[in-house]
Protein backbone atom coordinates (compact mmCIF):
# COMPACT_ATOMS: atom_id res chain seq x y z
CA UNK A 1 0.00 0.00 0.00
CA UNK A 2 2.89 2.31 0.91
CA UNK A 3 4.49 1.46 -2.42
CA UNK A 4 1.29 2.39 -4.21
CA UNK A 5 1.32 5.85 -2.68
CA UNK A 6 4.90 6.33 -3.78
CA UNK A 7 4.14 5.07 -7.27
CA UNK A 8 1.17 7.39 -7.51
CA UNK A 9 3.29 10.34 -6.49
CA UNK A 10 5.94 9.29 -8.97
CA UNK A 11 3.29 9.07 -11.64
CA UNK A 12 1.84 12.46 -10.68
CA UNK A 13 5.29 13.98 -10.68
CA UNK A 14 5.90 12.47 -14.10
CA UNK A 15 2.56 13.68 -15.40
CA UNK A 16 3.21 17.15 -14.04
CA UNK A 17 6.51 17.20 -15.91
CA UNK A 18 4.86 16.21 -19.15
CA UNK A 19 2.11 18.79 -18.71
CA UNK A 20 4.72 21.45 -17.93
CA UNK A 21 7.54 21.71 -20.39
CA UNK A 22 8.50 18.03 -20.74
CA UNK A 23 12.10 18.80 -19.78
CA UNK A 24 12.24 18.51 -16.01
CA UNK A 25 9.74 18.19 -13.16
CA UNK A 26 9.05 21.39 -11.21
CA UNK A 27 10.69 21.91 -7.81
CA UNK A 28 7.24 21.43 -6.25
CA UNK A 29 6.78 18.08 -7.99
CA UNK A 30 10.22 17.00 -6.75
CA UNK A 31 9.33 18.11 -3.22
CA UNK A 32 6.21 15.95 -3.44
CA UNK A 33 8.20 13.04 -4.79
CA UNK A 34 10.61 13.37 -1.86
CA UNK A 35 7.75 13.43 0.65
CA UNK A 36 6.24 10.33 -0.97
CA UNK A 37 9.62 8.59 -0.73
CA UNK A 38 9.92 9.43 2.97
CA UNK A 39 6.49 7.89 3.53
CA UNK A 40 7.14 4.76 1.50
CA UNK A 41 10.75 4.17 2.62
CA UNK A 42 10.75 4.56 6.40
CA UNK A 43 9.07 2.47 9.07
CA UNK A 44 8.98 2.79 12.84
CA UNK A 45 11.46 0.76 14.85
CA UNK A 46 11.65 0.64 18.65
CA UNK A 47 11.27 4.12 20.11
CA UNK A 48 11.86 5.79 16.70
CA UNK A 49 8.33 6.41 15.42
CA UNK A 50 7.30 7.87 12.08
CA UNK A 51 6.25 11.21 13.62
CA UNK A 52 9.98 12.02 13.66
CA UNK A 53 9.67 12.72 9.94
CA UNK A 54 7.05 15.42 10.52
CA UNK A 55 8.98 18.68 10.48
CA UNK A 56 8.26 21.75 12.57
CA UNK A 57 8.75 25.25 11.09
CA UNK A 58 12.39 25.48 12.13
CA UNK A 59 13.33 22.10 10.67
CA UNK A 60 11.50 22.82 7.45
CA UNK A 61 13.06 26.25 6.97
CA UNK A 62 16.55 24.80 7.48
CA UNK A 63 16.21 21.85 5.10
CA UNK A 64 17.40 23.60 1.96
CA UNK A 65 20.73 23.62 0.23
CA UNK A 66 20.93 27.27 1.25
CA UNK A 67 19.91 28.83 4.59
CA UNK A 68 16.55 30.64 4.74
CA UNK A 69 16.19 34.38 4.14
CA UNK A 70 17.20 36.64 7.03
CA UNK A 71 13.66 37.63 7.96
CA UNK A 72 12.60 33.98 8.10
CA UNK A 73 15.60 33.15 10.27
CA UNK A 74 14.85 36.04 12.67
CA UNK A 75 11.21 34.95 12.93
CA UNK A 76 12.24 31.38 13.79
CA UNK A 77 14.72 32.62 16.40
CA UNK A 78 12.10 34.82 18.07
CA UNK A 79 9.57 31.98 18.23
CA UNK A 80 12.16 29.53 19.58
CA UNK A 81 13.37 32.03 22.18
CA UNK A 82 9.81 32.62 23.36
CA UNK A 83 9.45 28.88 24.02
CA UNK A 84 12.52 28.57 26.29
CA UNK A 85 11.64 27.38 29.79
CA UNK A 86 13.81 29.13 32.34
CA UNK A 87 14.52 27.39 35.66
CA UNK A 88 11.51 28.11 37.89
CA UNK A 89 13.61 28.30 41.07
CA UNK A 90 16.25 30.53 39.47
CA UNK A 91 18.93 27.88 40.00
CA UNK A 92 20.98 27.63 36.80
CA UNK A 93 23.97 25.56 37.83
CA UNK A 94 24.21 21.96 39.06
CA UNK A 95 27.21 19.65 39.45
CA UNK A 96 29.99 19.87 36.84
CA UNK A 97 31.06 16.27 37.59
CA UNK A 98 27.67 15.01 36.46
CA UNK A 99 27.89 17.42 33.53
CA UNK A 100 31.18 15.87 32.43
CA UNK A 101 29.58 12.40 32.46
CA UNK A 102 26.70 13.72 30.36
CA UNK A 103 29.10 15.41 27.95
CA UNK A 104 30.87 12.07 27.40
CA UNK A 105 27.61 10.16 26.92
CA UNK A 106 26.43 10.00 23.32
CA UNK A 107 23.59 7.57 23.86
CA UNK A 108 19.88 8.04 23.58
CA UNK A 109 16.86 8.25 21.28
CA UNK A 110 18.07 5.92 18.52
CA UNK A 111 15.90 2.99 17.47
CA UNK A 112 18.33 0.67 19.30
CA UNK A 113 18.04 2.56 22.61
CA UNK A 114 15.54 1.23 25.13
CA UNK A 115 12.59 3.36 26.17
CA UNK A 116 12.86 5.46 29.31
CA UNK A 117 16.65 5.57 29.64
CA UNK A 118 17.90 9.18 30.04
CA UNK A 119 19.85 10.48 27.04
CA UNK A 120 23.39 11.75 27.15
CA UNK A 121 24.46 15.23 26.08
CA UNK A 122 26.63 14.17 23.11
CA UNK A 123 28.82 17.24 23.75
CA UNK A 124 32.23 15.71 22.94
CA UNK A 125 30.92 14.42 19.64
CA UNK A 126 31.11 18.00 18.35
CA UNK A 127 32.98 20.18 20.89
CA UNK A 128 36.29 20.34 22.68
CA UNK A 129 35.57 20.92 26.38
CA UNK A 130 38.49 19.96 28.59
CA UNK A 131 42.23 19.62 28.13
CA UNK A 132 42.15 16.00 29.29
CA UNK A 133 39.75 14.67 26.65
CA UNK A 134 41.50 14.62 23.28
CA UNK A 135 38.78 12.59 21.57
CA UNK A 136 36.47 15.44 20.65
CA UNK A 137 34.65 16.47 17.49
CA UNK A 138 34.92 19.74 15.59
CA UNK A 139 31.44 20.32 14.16
CA UNK A 140 30.85 22.91 16.90
CA UNK A 141 33.33 25.47 18.29
CA UNK A 142 35.75 24.63 21.09
CA UNK A 143 34.18 25.28 24.49
CA UNK A 144 37.45 24.92 26.39
CA UNK A 145 37.71 27.84 28.85
CA UNK A 146 34.08 28.73 28.07
CA UNK A 147 33.34 30.49 31.37
CA UNK A 148 36.81 31.96 31.88
CA UNK A 149 36.95 33.56 28.43
CA UNK A 150 33.61 35.21 29.16
CA UNK A 151 34.83 36.57 32.48
CA UNK A 152 32.64 34.40 34.69
CA UNK A 153 34.40 34.17 38.05
CA UNK A 154 31.20 33.82 40.08
CA UNK A 155 28.23 32.41 38.14
CA UNK A 156 25.83 33.54 40.90
CA UNK A 157 26.87 37.21 40.67
CA UNK A 158 24.66 39.72 38.83
CA UNK A 159 27.59 40.49 36.50
CA UNK A 160 27.41 36.90 35.19
CA UNK A 161 23.64 36.99 34.79
CA UNK A 162 23.56 37.71 31.10
CA UNK A 163 26.02 35.02 30.02
CA UNK A 164 24.39 32.49 32.37
CA UNK A 165 21.00 33.12 30.81
CA UNK A 166 22.44 33.05 27.28
CA UNK A 167 24.07 29.68 27.96
CA UNK A 168 20.86 28.21 29.38
CA UNK A 169 19.00 29.39 26.28
CA UNK A 170 21.67 27.84 24.03
CA UNK A 171 21.41 24.46 25.74
CA UNK A 172 17.62 24.53 25.99
CA UNK A 173 17.06 25.66 22.41
CA UNK A 174 20.06 26.40 20.19
CA UNK A 175 17.73 27.65 17.47
CA UNK A 176 16.72 30.62 19.66
CA UNK A 177 19.97 32.38 18.76
CA UNK A 178 20.85 30.66 15.47
CA UNK A 179 17.87 29.45 13.43
CA UNK A 180 19.73 26.72 11.55
CA UNK A 181 22.28 25.75 14.20
CA UNK A 182 23.53 22.17 13.86
CA UNK A 183 23.02 21.72 17.60
CA UNK A 184 19.99 19.83 18.91
CA UNK A 185 17.38 21.67 21.01
CA UNK A 186 18.11 19.65 24.13
CA UNK A 187 15.47 21.11 26.44
CA UNK A 188 12.89 22.02 23.83
CA UNK A 189 12.89 18.55 22.25
CA UNK A 190 12.87 16.78 25.61
CA UNK A 191 16.26 15.17 25.01
CA UNK A 192 17.64 16.40 28.37
CA UNK A 193 15.83 17.31 31.60
CA UNK A 194 16.22 20.67 33.33
CA UNK A 195 18.33 18.92 36.00
CA UNK A 196 20.67 17.51 33.33
CA UNK A 197 20.97 20.92 31.69
CA UNK A 198 21.92 22.42 35.08
CA UNK A 199 24.79 19.94 35.29
CA UNK A 200 25.97 20.90 31.79
CA UNK A 201 25.69 24.58 32.76
CA UNK A 202 28.03 23.85 35.67
CA UNK A 203 30.48 22.05 33.39
CA UNK A 204 30.63 25.18 31.20
CA UNK A 205 30.47 27.94 33.81
CA UNK A 206 31.66 26.68 37.20
CA UNK A 207 35.17 28.07 37.80
CA UNK A 208 36.07 24.70 39.39
CA UNK A 209 35.08 22.77 36.25
CA UNK A 210 37.96 21.33 34.18
CA UNK A 211 36.52 23.34 31.27
CA UNK A 212 37.75 26.47 33.04
CA UNK A 213 40.90 25.03 34.64
CA UNK A 214 44.04 27.12 34.25
Amino acid at each position, binding site marked *: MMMKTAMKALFLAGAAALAGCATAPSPQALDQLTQAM*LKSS*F*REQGIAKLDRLTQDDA*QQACSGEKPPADDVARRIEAAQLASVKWPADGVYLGDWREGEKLAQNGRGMTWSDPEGVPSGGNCYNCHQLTKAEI*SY*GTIGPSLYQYGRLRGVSDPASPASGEIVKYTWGKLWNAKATNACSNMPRFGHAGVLSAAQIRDLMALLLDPKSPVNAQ
Partner: protein
Amino acid sequence: MMRGPFAALVAALLASALASPFALAQTSAADGIAQYRALLADGNPAELWEAKGELLWKQPRGTNKLSFEKSCDLGKGIGVVKGAFVELPRYFSDTQRVQDLESRLLSCMQTQGFNAAEIAATPFGRGEQVNIEALVAYISAESKGMKFKVSQAHAEERKMFEAGKRLFYFRGGPYDFACASCHGEPGKRIRLQDLPDLTHNPGDGVGFAAWPAYRVSSGELWSMQRRLNDCYRQQRFPFPGYASDATIALSTFMAVQGQGAVSIAPAIKR
Protein backbone atom coordinates in the same frame (compact mmCIF):
# COMPACT_ATOMS: atom_id res chain seq x y z
CA MET B 1 47.83 -12.04 7.36
CA MET B 2 46.30 -9.96 10.13
CA ARG B 3 49.09 -10.45 12.65
CA GLY B 4 51.60 -8.40 10.67
CA PRO B 5 49.73 -5.10 10.52
CA PHE B 6 48.59 -5.32 14.14
CA ALA B 7 52.07 -6.02 15.43
CA ALA B 8 53.43 -3.16 13.33
CA LEU B 9 50.67 -0.91 14.64
CA VAL B 10 51.51 -1.63 18.26
CA ALA B 11 55.17 -0.96 17.53
CA ALA B 12 54.33 2.29 15.76
CA LEU B 13 52.10 3.48 18.60
CA LEU B 14 54.71 2.60 21.20
CA ALA B 15 57.41 4.38 19.22
CA SER B 16 55.35 7.55 18.81
CA ALA B 17 54.32 7.50 22.46
CA LEU B 18 57.95 7.20 23.58
CA ALA B 19 59.16 9.83 21.17
CA SER B 20 56.61 12.48 22.08
CA PRO B 21 54.74 11.79 25.29
CA PHE B 22 53.44 15.36 25.55
CA ALA B 23 52.74 16.05 21.90
CA LEU B 24 49.57 14.03 21.43
CA ALA B 25 47.67 17.03 20.09
CA GLN B 26 44.74 16.62 17.71
CA THR B 27 46.89 16.57 14.56
CA SER B 28 49.11 13.79 15.81
CA ALA B 29 46.04 11.83 16.90
CA ALA B 30 44.64 12.15 13.38
CA ASP B 31 48.03 11.22 11.92
CA GLY B 32 48.10 8.18 14.16
CA ILE B 33 44.73 7.06 12.86
CA ALA B 34 45.83 7.57 9.25
CA GLN B 35 48.95 5.52 9.97
CA TYR B 36 46.80 2.83 11.59
CA ARG B 37 44.57 2.64 8.50
CA ALA B 38 47.53 2.48 6.14
CA LEU B 39 48.97 -0.43 8.11
CA LEU B 40 45.66 -2.26 8.10
CA ALA B 41 45.13 -1.74 4.37
CA ASP B 42 48.09 -4.05 3.82
CA GLY B 43 45.88 -7.00 4.55
CA ASN B 44 42.28 -5.97 4.20
CA PRO B 45 40.14 -8.86 5.48
CA ALA B 46 37.49 -7.79 2.92
CA GLU B 47 39.41 -10.14 0.61
CA LEU B 48 37.72 -13.04 2.39
CA TRP B 49 34.31 -11.62 1.48
CA GLU B 50 35.46 -10.99 -2.08
CA ALA B 51 36.50 -14.63 -2.55
CA LYS B 52 33.18 -15.86 -1.21
CA GLY B 53 31.31 -13.37 -3.37
CA GLU B 54 33.01 -14.60 -6.51
CA LEU B 55 31.91 -18.16 -5.74
CA LEU B 56 28.34 -16.97 -5.10
CA TRP B 57 28.33 -15.06 -8.38
CA LYS B 58 29.20 -18.21 -10.34
CA GLN B 59 27.15 -20.70 -8.36
CA PRO B 60 23.66 -21.78 -9.57
CA ARG B 61 21.33 -20.81 -6.73
CA GLY B 62 17.68 -20.43 -5.75
CA THR B 63 14.72 -22.60 -6.72
CA ASN B 64 15.49 -21.83 -10.39
CA LYS B 65 19.12 -23.00 -10.04
CA LEU B 66 20.45 -19.96 -11.87
CA SER B 67 23.87 -18.39 -11.47
CA PHE B 68 24.26 -14.61 -11.55
CA GLU B 69 26.99 -15.17 -14.11
CA LYS B 70 24.33 -16.50 -16.52
CA SER B 71 21.33 -14.39 -15.44
CA CYS B 72 22.21 -11.12 -13.67
CA ASP B 73 22.64 -7.84 -15.53
CA LEU B 74 24.25 -5.16 -13.37
CA GLY B 75 23.98 -2.67 -16.23
CA LYS B 76 26.78 -3.76 -18.54
CA GLY B 77 25.19 -6.97 -19.82
CA ILE B 78 24.44 -10.35 -18.28
CA GLY B 79 27.34 -11.64 -16.21
CA VAL B 80 29.52 -8.54 -16.63
CA VAL B 81 30.99 -7.45 -13.29
CA LYS B 82 34.01 -5.33 -14.19
CA GLY B 83 33.14 -1.64 -14.22
CA ALA B 84 29.52 -2.17 -13.16
CA PHE B 85 29.99 -0.88 -9.60
CA VAL B 86 31.19 2.60 -10.61
CA GLU B 87 28.14 3.10 -12.87
CA LEU B 88 25.54 2.45 -10.17
CA PRO B 89 22.90 3.59 -9.30
CA ARG B 90 21.35 3.68 -12.79
CA TYR B 91 18.01 3.19 -14.51
CA PHE B 92 17.10 -0.35 -15.56
CA SER B 93 14.47 -0.73 -18.26
CA ASP B 94 13.46 -4.26 -17.16
CA THR B 95 12.45 -3.13 -13.66
CA GLN B 96 11.65 0.44 -14.80
CA ARG B 97 13.44 1.75 -11.72
CA VAL B 98 16.65 3.42 -10.73
CA GLN B 99 18.54 0.81 -8.72
CA ASP B 100 21.65 0.81 -6.58
CA LEU B 101 23.83 -2.29 -6.41
CA GLU B 102 21.88 -3.90 -3.60
CA SER B 103 18.37 -3.32 -4.96
CA ARG B 104 19.66 -4.70 -8.27
CA LEU B 105 21.01 -7.78 -6.50
CA LEU B 106 17.57 -8.28 -4.95
CA SER B 107 16.04 -8.23 -8.46
CA CYS B 108 18.62 -10.79 -9.63
CA MET B 109 17.89 -12.98 -6.59
CA GLN B 110 14.19 -12.79 -7.36
CA THR B 111 15.04 -14.17 -10.82
CA GLN B 112 16.94 -16.99 -9.12
CA GLY B 113 13.75 -17.83 -7.26
CA PHE B 114 14.40 -16.12 -3.95
CA ASN B 115 11.81 -13.91 -2.27
CA ALA B 116 13.33 -10.42 -2.57
CA ALA B 117 10.89 -8.81 -0.10
CA GLU B 118 11.83 -11.41 2.50
CA ILE B 119 15.56 -10.75 2.01
CA ALA B 120 14.96 -6.98 2.22
CA ALA B 121 13.24 -7.52 5.58
CA THR B 122 16.08 -9.70 6.91
CA PRO B 123 18.33 -7.93 9.46
CA PHE B 124 21.92 -7.19 8.42
CA GLY B 125 24.34 -10.02 9.10
CA ARG B 126 21.73 -12.78 8.90
CA GLY B 127 20.47 -15.24 6.30
CA GLU B 128 20.82 -14.14 2.69
CA GLN B 129 22.02 -10.70 3.86
CA VAL B 130 25.32 -12.41 4.68
CA ASN B 131 25.60 -13.51 1.05
CA ILE B 132 24.83 -9.99 -0.15
CA GLU B 133 27.79 -8.73 1.92
CA ALA B 134 30.06 -11.13 0.03
CA LEU B 135 28.56 -10.23 -3.34
CA VAL B 136 28.96 -6.47 -2.86
CA ALA B 137 32.56 -7.02 -1.74
CA TYR B 138 33.33 -9.02 -4.90
CA ILE B 139 31.44 -6.75 -7.28
CA SER B 140 32.94 -3.53 -5.91
CA ALA B 141 36.46 -5.02 -5.85
CA GLU B 142 36.16 -5.73 -9.59
CA SER B 143 35.94 -1.94 -10.13
CA LYS B 144 38.70 -0.98 -7.70
CA GLY B 145 40.76 1.89 -9.08
CA MET B 146 38.10 2.86 -11.60
CA LYS B 147 36.42 6.26 -11.63
CA PHE B 148 32.75 6.82 -10.85
CA LYS B 149 30.82 7.47 -14.04
CA VAL B 150 27.15 7.50 -13.10
CA SER B 151 24.53 8.24 -15.74
CA GLN B 152 22.15 11.18 -15.44
CA ALA B 153 20.85 10.71 -18.98
CA HIS B 154 17.49 9.19 -18.05
CA ALA B 155 14.77 11.43 -16.57
CA GLU B 156 14.27 8.95 -13.70
CA GLU B 157 17.98 9.17 -12.84
CA ARG B 158 17.78 12.95 -12.65
CA LYS B 159 14.68 12.73 -10.48
CA MET B 160 16.45 10.38 -8.10
CA PHE B 161 19.36 12.81 -7.83
CA GLU B 162 16.99 15.70 -7.04
CA ALA B 163 15.07 13.68 -4.45
CA GLY B 164 18.36 12.48 -2.96
CA LYS B 165 19.58 16.04 -2.63
CA ARG B 166 16.39 16.98 -0.81
CA LEU B 167 16.72 13.98 1.51
CA PHE B 168 20.35 14.89 2.21
CA TYR B 169 19.29 18.29 3.56
CA PHE B 170 16.08 17.08 5.23
CA ARG B 171 16.11 17.85 8.96
CA GLY B 172 14.00 15.79 11.28
CA GLY B 173 13.82 13.78 14.48
CA PRO B 174 14.38 14.88 18.09
CA TYR B 175 17.93 16.12 17.31
CA ASP B 176 17.03 18.13 14.15
CA PHE B 177 19.72 16.24 12.22
CA ALA B 178 20.03 16.00 8.45
CA CYS B 179 22.81 14.19 6.58
CA ALA B 180 24.17 17.70 6.02
CA SER B 181 24.50 18.32 9.78
CA CYS B 182 27.62 16.13 9.84
CA HIS B 183 28.56 16.00 6.15
CA GLY B 184 28.02 19.63 5.17
CA GLU B 185 31.45 21.20 5.73
CA PRO B 186 35.04 20.21 4.96
CA GLY B 187 37.50 19.16 7.66
CA LYS B 188 35.00 18.23 10.37
CA ARG B 189 34.95 15.21 12.63
CA ILE B 190 32.84 13.47 15.27
CA ARG B 191 35.11 12.64 18.19
CA LEU B 192 38.23 11.60 16.24
CA GLN B 193 36.35 10.26 13.22
CA ASP B 194 36.86 12.35 10.07
CA LEU B 195 33.65 13.21 8.22
CA PRO B 196 33.56 13.54 4.45
CA ASP B 197 31.96 16.73 3.15
CA LEU B 198 29.33 15.34 0.80
CA THR B 199 27.99 18.68 -0.44
CA HIS B 200 30.87 18.69 -2.90
CA ASN B 201 32.91 15.99 -4.59
CA PRO B 202 34.80 14.55 -1.60
CA GLY B 203 37.55 13.16 -3.87
CA ASP B 204 39.11 9.77 -4.58
CA GLY B 205 38.24 6.93 -2.21
CA VAL B 206 36.12 9.06 0.13
CA GLY B 207 32.41 8.85 0.86
CA PHE B 208 30.47 6.87 -1.73
CA ALA B 209 33.76 5.70 -3.28
CA ALA B 210 34.79 3.93 -0.03
CA TRP B 211 31.81 1.66 0.66
CA PRO B 212 31.36 -1.30 1.03
CA ALA B 213 34.09 -1.45 3.66
CA TYR B 214 35.53 -3.78 6.26
CA ARG B 215 35.09 -2.32 9.74
CA VAL B 216 37.92 -3.27 12.08
CA SER B 217 35.92 -2.26 15.17
CA SER B 218 33.18 -4.78 14.51
CA GLY B 219 34.94 -7.28 12.22
CA GLU B 220 32.10 -6.91 9.74
CA LEU B 221 31.81 -6.01 6.11
CA TRP B 222 29.33 -3.18 5.70
CA SER B 223 27.54 -2.49 2.44
CA MET B 224 26.48 1.05 1.45
CA GLN B 225 22.93 0.20 2.52
CA ARG B 226 24.18 -0.74 5.97
CA ARG B 227 26.29 2.43 6.15
CA LEU B 228 23.24 4.56 5.33
CA ASN B 229 21.07 2.60 7.74
CA ASP B 230 23.43 3.28 10.63
CA CYS B 231 23.73 6.97 9.69
CA TYR B 232 19.95 7.25 9.92
CA ARG B 233 20.01 5.41 13.26
CA GLN B 234 22.45 7.97 14.64
CA GLN B 235 20.38 10.75 13.10
CA ARG B 236 17.61 9.47 15.41
CA PHE B 237 15.37 8.88 12.39
CA PRO B 238 12.95 5.98 11.97
CA PHE B 239 14.21 2.91 10.08
CA PRO B 240 14.92 3.23 6.33
CA GLY B 241 13.75 0.13 4.49
CA TYR B 242 16.54 -1.94 2.89
CA ALA B 243 16.95 -0.89 -0.74
CA SER B 244 14.04 1.56 -0.33
CA ASP B 245 13.65 4.46 -2.75
CA ALA B 246 14.93 6.99 -0.21
CA THR B 247 18.21 5.09 0.19
CA ILE B 248 18.59 4.72 -3.59
CA ALA B 249 17.90 8.44 -4.07
CA LEU B 250 20.53 9.34 -1.47
CA SER B 251 23.00 6.97 -3.10
CA THR B 252 22.31 8.55 -6.48
CA PHE B 253 22.98 11.99 -4.99
CA MET B 254 26.25 10.84 -3.42
CA ALA B 255 27.40 8.95 -6.52
CA VAL B 256 26.76 11.95 -8.79
CA GLN B 257 28.49 14.27 -6.30
CA GLY B 258 31.48 11.96 -6.39
CA GLN B 259 31.53 11.70 -10.19
CA GLY B 260 35.08 11.01 -11.38
CA ALA B 261 36.34 9.93 -7.97
CA VAL B 262 38.39 6.72 -7.87
CA SER B 263 36.71 3.81 -6.08
CA ILE B 264 38.73 2.07 -3.37
CA ALA B 265 35.87 -0.18 -2.29
CA PRO B 266 35.89 -2.45 -0.43
CA ALA B 267 37.84 -0.07 1.81
CA ILE B 268 38.97 -0.61 5.40
CA LYS B 269 37.63 1.47 8.26
CA ARG B 270 38.57 1.70 11.93
